[in-house]
């Protein structure tokens, strides 16, 4: 009878990435609800069909296979870089699905190799580039240390970013790698103290072991400021950390749940729908759904078939698009990413991330 | 009963000379020398802890002696690996039964033949050609010569773990026989058996010697059986040979009686024990 538009999803509701998956699911679901209440997309009802993957690639693939055999899916949310790479061949082969997901892996930001995928924000290299621009503006020739976890996620942007930092005239005085399971970072702190940087950039962590880094650094009286990338920027996580969290900064492509900026009507709606704080994963899921739906809408409106090619082409027509305030500036998606972000800094007294810069758009 | 093909199992001649073994400070064996003549039963006796089992372990290669030589048919095997010794015709049973609990009786017995078989991994995976032929030959031979002989046909497909002690000892013997032994070493073959079962086992041992023509070296504390069936007796005490010779001669040796045999007379013992009763 009535035609629907189905968003498929391999979402990690359990496992190491579950904290994000749960929020992402909520974000997409809410977007679906809001859209349907407003009449759907080009006459179609939107529906989310998703399953848990435990953040394991083979499970994600299984879910993909299952959902695509049971539903007519043209939009898909995938949960990891590994999955995005694994499924890419299949996406190309099918040519019917546009995919985005939780990964900001810089490798995916390549329209030739990944023609039917995109990400609803800057890739990891771009995130750090945004940080670097901020740093360069704050302090010329600042000394920087990169700290990353020894995982695919952690290693992703480091090489490129070190190069970029040097090009921008910043001095990289150290690179620290921690094992994926590290909790105790006392030796890394000692190294950091040797290097004595002005800025320390973390990547590849969610929360642990950052609080320990911060509190020990404070104890030692290090002058460094600490920064991180998207997945370590959730407000509620830092709320538990207390005083040491104060001043932690990072790049964030979206506004926070509690942001009452006048140009953000969507946030108002979300707050009505869910009275308590929603994590950054929520915004990520919400915006991803919004962008892929927009692509579908533009395709349908143009009377074209929902092929991956058409979807992606429509997506790339998005220009100066208003996200309802989730992102503070109008966005365009010329390629696979949305290279926009803003620096936020944590205020322990208010228990909130506060903007520390204007929105920064990277120029290609 | 079918005799094994003649010539295959020429009885072996074992010569142990000057063997010494120690564990840390403990001297388990000191300058032990003796011989097992082809086609005879030699009994090794001695008090508990005298080193009998250790000597067995040296001969089969599980322990490395500190000094001395072990020769099989004149060939020095002191430093050969245990599996090579097994292949050369040394077979044994164990004091504490060492059957493979996860296998059936039949498989335990077949395992004994391992060293003499040729199937390689590829043939085994395909179960083709040599592998299949060899297995079938082995099965036929085991059935004819061993299972029938030791009267264990009714249990051949049982897991060994469920067997009573006496039967387990019999399966151990069967496995040792499957090894194509030329020298069979039995470590306490009748321990824990009653008179009747001991008689059965004694008969098997005698048959093995006489009909298969195998040399036998045996550790046993059942003096009745040792004295009755062995041709030669070696006595160990504190790791040293204190006497050896024909059974009657050894039995009469006062040193042996003092270290090992005791009164050797139940009637005498009974008198002593009732004396204890009266004293109390």
């Amino acid at each position, binding site marked *: 009878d009535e035609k629907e538009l189905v968003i498929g999803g391999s979402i990690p*509701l359990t496992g190491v990435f579950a904290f994000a998956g749960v929020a992402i699911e909520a974000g997409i679901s809410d977007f679906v609800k809001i859209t349907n209440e407003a009449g759907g997309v080009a006459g179609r009802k939107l529906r989310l069909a998703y399953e848990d993957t435990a953040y394991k690639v083979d499970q994600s693939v*299984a879910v993909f296979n299952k959902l695509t055999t049971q539903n007519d899916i043209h939009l898909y949310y995938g949960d990891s870089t590994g999955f995005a790479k694994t499924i*890419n061949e299949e996406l190309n082969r099918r040519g019917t699905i546009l995919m985005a997901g939780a990964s900001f892996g810089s490798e995916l930001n390549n329209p030739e190799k990944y023609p039917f995928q995109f990400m609803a924000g800057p890739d990891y290299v771009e995130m750090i580039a945004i940080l670097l621009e901020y740093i360069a503006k704050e302090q010329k020739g600042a000394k920087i240390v990169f700290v990353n976890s020894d995982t695919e996620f952690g290693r992703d942007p480091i090489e490129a970013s070190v190069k970029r930092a040097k090009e921008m005239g910043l001095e990289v005085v150290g690179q620290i790698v921690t094992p994926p399971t590290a909790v105790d970072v006392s030796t890394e702190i000692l190294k950091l103290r040797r290097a004595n940087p002005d800025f320390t950039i973390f990547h590849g962590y969610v929360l642990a072991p950052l609080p320990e880094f911060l509190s020990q650094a404070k104890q030692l009286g290090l002058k460094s400021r600490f920064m991180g990338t998207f997945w370590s920027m959730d407000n509620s996580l830092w709320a538990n950390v207390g005083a040491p969290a104060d001043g932690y900064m990072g790049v964030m492509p979206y506004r926070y749940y509690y942001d009452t900026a006048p140009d953000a009507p969507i946030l108002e709606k979300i707050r009505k729908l869910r009275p308590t704080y929603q994590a950054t994963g929520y915004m990520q899921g919400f915006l991803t759904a919004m962008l892929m739906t927009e692509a579908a809408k533009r395709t349908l409106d143009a009377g074209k078939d929902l092929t991956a090619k058409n979807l992606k082409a429509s997506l790339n027509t998005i220009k100066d698009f208003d996200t309802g305030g989730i992102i503070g500036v109008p966005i365009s998606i010329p390629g696979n990413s949305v290279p926009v972000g803003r620096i936020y800094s944590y205020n322990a007294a208010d228990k909130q991330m506060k903007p520390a810069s204007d929105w920064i758009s990277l120029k290609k | 009963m079918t005799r094994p093909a003649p010539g295959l199992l020429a009885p072996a001649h074992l010569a142990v000379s000057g063997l010494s073994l120690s564990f840390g400070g403990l001297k388990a064996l000191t300058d032990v020398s003796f011989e097992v003549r082809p086609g005879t039963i030699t009994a090794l006796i001695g008090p508990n802890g005298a080193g009998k089992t250790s000597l067995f372990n040296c001969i089969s290669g599980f322990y490395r002696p500190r000094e001395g030589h072990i020769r099989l048919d004149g060939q020095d095997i002191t430093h050969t690996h245990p599996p090579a010794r097994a292949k050369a015709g040394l*077979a044994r049973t164990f004091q504490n039964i060492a059957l493979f609990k996860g296998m059936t009786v039949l498989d335990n017995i077949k395992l*004994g033949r391992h060293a003499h078989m040729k199937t*390689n991994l590829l*043939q*085994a995976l395909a*179960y083709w050609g040599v592998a299949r032929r060899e297995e079938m030959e082995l099965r036929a031979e085991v059935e004819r010569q061993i299972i029938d002989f030791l009267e264990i046909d009714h249990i051949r497909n049982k897991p060994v773990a469920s067997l009573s002690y006496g039967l387990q000892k019999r399966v151990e013997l069967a496995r040792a026989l499957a*090894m194509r032994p030329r020298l069979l070493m039995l470590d306490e073959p009748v321990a824990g058996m009653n008179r009747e079962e001991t008689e059965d086992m004694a008969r098997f041992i005698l048959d093995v010697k006489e009909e298969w023509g195998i040399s036998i070296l045996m550790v046993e504390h059942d003096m009745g059986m040792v004295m009755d069936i062995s041709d030669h007796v070696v006595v160990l005490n504190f790791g040293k040979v204190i006497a050896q010779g024909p059974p009657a001669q050894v039995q009469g040796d006062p040193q042996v009686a003092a270290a090992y045999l005791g009164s050797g007379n139940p009637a005498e013992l009974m008198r002593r024990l009732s004396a204890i009763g009266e004293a109390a």
Partner: protein
Amino acid sequence: MRIATAKETYIADEGLLTTRTQRAWMIVLALVLVLAPFVLNAYWLYLACLVAINVASATGLNILTGYTGLVSLGQAAFMAVGAYAVAFLDGHLGTPFLLNIFAAGFVAAAVGVLVGVPSLRVKGLYLAIATIAASFILHFVFTSWVSVTGGMSGVNVAPARLFGIELASPFALYFVVVPITALMVLAAANLFRTRIGRAFIAIRDRDISAEVLGIPLLQYKLMSFALSSFYAGVAGGMWAYFFRVVTPESFPFATSIFFLAAVIVGGLGTILGPILGAAFMTLVPELLKYVVEWLGPVFPNAGAALSPVRTIVFGALIIFFLMFEPQGLAEIVRRIRRFFHLWPFKT
């Protein structure tokens, strides 16, 4: 009830399938396997292939752990070796599909022998942990030897081709993966009818007496490691063609635990065990998803709220089966068979 079948020859007595009923069942099973791809949808075919790959690897682990008694927690790493081998051969040399799969087995076997070297001295759970160590060292190699493994981002694998047909969908791969696995299982079953299989079991039950009985320990322990990792390598090779990308995180340590669990839950030291165990462990999480789905209407938002329940149920099932039947699923099957064998008499 069936009257005991008297066997005329030793050949019949030593066959893999000794009764007519068994043979009949086997034919039914073969038919089901052949017809399945024409009935099942892509999702179930995907799972069928995954089960087959896991069965192959679990069967290998069972040779090592179930039959030879050497507990290994490195199976995932050996699979990874196989997967990388395929990726390398396919990408750099362009050698054909079947050859690559085979070569993957051999490369993994070589690595397996290396990892097995400590097994002569190190026993039991100590050895198990040593294999964990080996797999972490291998992981390090995967991330660092960038020219071969592509480092952290891994390597892509082109779709397999056989006789000019591209094997990209689960449907196509099914016809390669399932027969290969079936052959491997058959070979394992054969092995334990011969002296080599018996030697493995003897080593498991009591290695020192096995040595005195004529089995060279080091040689056989290494052989078992080699064989087991060969199976893992082939499974990993098929995996590589199946997922078409290999990264260091494709085979995390948890996968090794998965295989050990599969073999134990299925039944150590039985041919049927790893088949049942791998199928069980692969499919249960999927079936649990359906349960969650059915509960959906009752508990709104069931997906998010109930997924920890899935983790719990999964663990609980392992516990339950082991407590209820420590010998594994294979033992349950055996009991059912015995029941029908003797029916209507009580055992």
